[in-house]
């Protein structure tokens, strides 16, 4: 198990090192941040001054090693746009993203589990069809459209819930549901198909023959064995929710990592782009590692293979 974890850790570090080069090069290939921060009437002298002050006049190789050298100590430099240490911006934004993703994932689990299990148990009935409609809509409706419809009607016209910001628990509901609906759809379908397969297996039939209560057969014996793909899905999607909720964060004015990345990209804020990409990549790698370890807990056979 330890060897397995160490091997995966090494793989992640190599991936992060490669990524640091790619993001450094690509960020600089897309343009000059001074075109965004300097006023339209800036002179050549203004450009030269700003470039020198921001350290952008140094050779690329020097800039890269300076960035990596500081990044390993948690110092991602200073935002060109906001002129604040990037680590401070990450500290402000990452918790908001984690909280929103946790809310969205919690809501998704709460909806997808009963819906997926019931759809499998009551296959072909109205419950199953209703669950499938939820799944199809969740995966086909564009997130930005769902978000805008919710803001326009639920928040704006009916005034049931806040339209934006991260000020109260109520303000989590609309962005959380918008983000979570897509996850509900995927998770519910996975759970339904996994449950259908497991419910048809020999050991479940044997449990029923032995007189085990149907509720226990479904919610304990069958569900546990249908969980592995769902755990993988939930893990990956949690990382995705944390790192890529740009549309939802923009519509709901949610100060998260996604919008930090978007603002960084549109203003060519190299230190922010680099920091966000490396942070999100680290989160994805850590979640993947966690999911792999969780497999081993759920299914003991996995820990013996590499």
């Amino acid at each position, binding site marked *: 198990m330890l060897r397995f974890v160490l091997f995966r850790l090494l793989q992640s570090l190599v991936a992060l090192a490669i990524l640091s080069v790619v993001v450094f090069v690509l960020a600089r290939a897309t343009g000059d941040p001074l075109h965004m921060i*300097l006023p339209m009437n800036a*002179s050549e002298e203004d450009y030269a*001054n700003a470039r020198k002050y921001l350290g952008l006049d140094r050779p690329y190789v020097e800039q890269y090693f300076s960035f990596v050298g500081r990044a390993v100590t948690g110092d991602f430099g200073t935002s060109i746009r906001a002129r604040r240490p990037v680590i401070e911006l990450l500290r402000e*934004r990452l918790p908001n993203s984690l909280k929103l993703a946790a809310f969205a994932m919690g809501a998704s689990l709460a909806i997808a589990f009963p819906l997926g299990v019931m759809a499998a148990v009551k296959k072909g009935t109205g419950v199953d069809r209703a669950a499938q409609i939820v799944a199809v809509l969740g995966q086909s409706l564009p997130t930005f459209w769902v978000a805008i419809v919710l803001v326009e009607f639920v928040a704006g016209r009916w005034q049931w819930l806040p339209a934006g910001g991260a000020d109260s*628990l109520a303000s989590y509901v609309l962005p959380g549901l918008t983000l979570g609906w897509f996850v509900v759809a995927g998770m519910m379908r996975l759970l339904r198909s996994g449950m259908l397969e497991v419910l048809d297996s020999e050991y479940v039939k044997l449990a029923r023959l032995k007189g085990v209560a149907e509720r226990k057969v479904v919610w304990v014996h069958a569900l546990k064995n249908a969980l592995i793909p769902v755990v993988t899905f939930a893990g990956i999607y949690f990382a995705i929710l944390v790192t890529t909720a740009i549309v939802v964060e923009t519509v709901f004015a949610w100060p998260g990592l996604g919008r930090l990345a978007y603002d960084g990209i549109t203003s060519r804020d190299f230190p922010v782009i680099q920091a966000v990409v490396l942070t999100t990549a680290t989160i994805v790698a850590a979640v993947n590692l966690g999911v792999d370890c969780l497999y081993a807990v759920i299914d003991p056979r996995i820990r013996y293979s590499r």
Partner: protein
Amino acid sequence: MKSTTRIIVTSLLLLIAVASPAWAQAKSELTVALSSFSAETLDPALQGHNVKYYLSLMFDYLVGVTPDGQPSQAGGLASKWESSADHRRWTFHLRKGVKFHDGSDMTSEDVKFSLQRAMSKRSTTGYAGPLRTLIADIETPAPDRVVIVLKESTLIIPTYLSRSLSTEGMVLPKKYIEANGDDVFARKPVGTGPYKFVEQVVGSHIKMTAVDNHWRIGVPKYKNVTFKLVPEETTRIALLRRGEADVADVSRERVKELEKEGFPVHMRREEAIIHMWWILGPEGRTPPTRDKRVREALNLAIDRAEIAQSIFGGYAEPAAIPMGLSWAFKEVGFKVTPEMAYPYDVARAKKLLADAGYAGGFTQDVYAFQLPGFAEGKSFAEAVAGYWEKIGVKSKLIPVDYPAFRKQWVDRKAPGAVGYYNIANRDWIGTYALLEKQAYTPSKLNDTVNDPEIDGMIAQVMRQTDREKINALMRNIYTRMRSEHHGVPVVYVHSPYATSKTLGKYNPGAVMYDLFIDELARK
């Protein structure tokens, strides 16, 4: 199961009750929801113009202006100012008893320090460059008197240090910055304005709280002011409807709907000119737009009235003068005559092209991008391209983002290609400063005009101390810009700001990048 359902329903009802707008906001709060905060830097020396929206509440300017942009001895830290006979020494008399938010007194040393900081190499403000060129020395003969010594005579120094332009005139606390450093100041700014800084979450909001009594505003009406960054318009409008925002910028297409619902919509009339220009090559203009007739043809091919109606929902007026910032027209005595307006005349445009040897048309690159405050950018570029197609000019739309276009422009890598900008309207000195950067050959980087006659007039304005002669020069520059068709002025756009039904009277003013939110705090 029934009890579970009851719990869920009760929780939802509670959630809705807690989230209801009636509880959302106390009366002493003022919330401004804006689509963009620009760079979100709280240090006036590290910003362009856009930050004035919120910085104007925390900092006072050396020279004040009224909301309609006129210099005001009642609105700034200088209660009066005068110049020497040769206009090279400007003396500013400072208001006594003004204190910074940390309790220290504001003196001439602070003014000197602030100006030096605004002109420093680190500064990225809009007019740091011209100030470096103009100012030779800053003297502080008394705590309430500061003398600015210029390298050459000029009338424009008070305006450069006023609220009507950028942030250079904001007075900062010397002792606080020297004791704590620039980084601390940028995170916890201290000024003399009616509101002091409380909190900033980049990408989310800036909170301020009122001072007890401000020399200009008195006891501010609102205890707290929050600027919320809300990029999506639907959300800004939802905040207005819920009473969670008191002022919000909205698009022109939502104005009628909001007015029908009873929300007052305040227009900043002619807030910006939508102006297009051709990128110069290293040696100036390149064919075919080197030919004046081609430039005129491209102007005549555009139906400005239709663009104003269809792209800008009727909240725009046709423009006729390239870079003609209309808020300055009255100040310099310039009038746009009916003959100056470009008619929509396809036949004449085609004839001009034929006369210039382009009867078969040519290919015109058009960069298409969105800009803050100009969401219609790409559809506007498509519309113009469509008009040009009608006279045989094959427009090639190049979708980019603005920084990519600006790189092509300032590096002169795409000579002859067209770009555009929603240039904020401003007074005559702001207009002059714009012309000096974008229509003056020696400015090199940003130049879009390349006309020796205009260069000569621009050079004279800076040195001229007779106001009437300045006005005449400015009028001649406008006339020449129009007669030579140095660009494609398309429309002046009006910008709508919706307010809550209870906010009352609000004048967003006519000063570039300033909404005079602090004036709302006046009781």
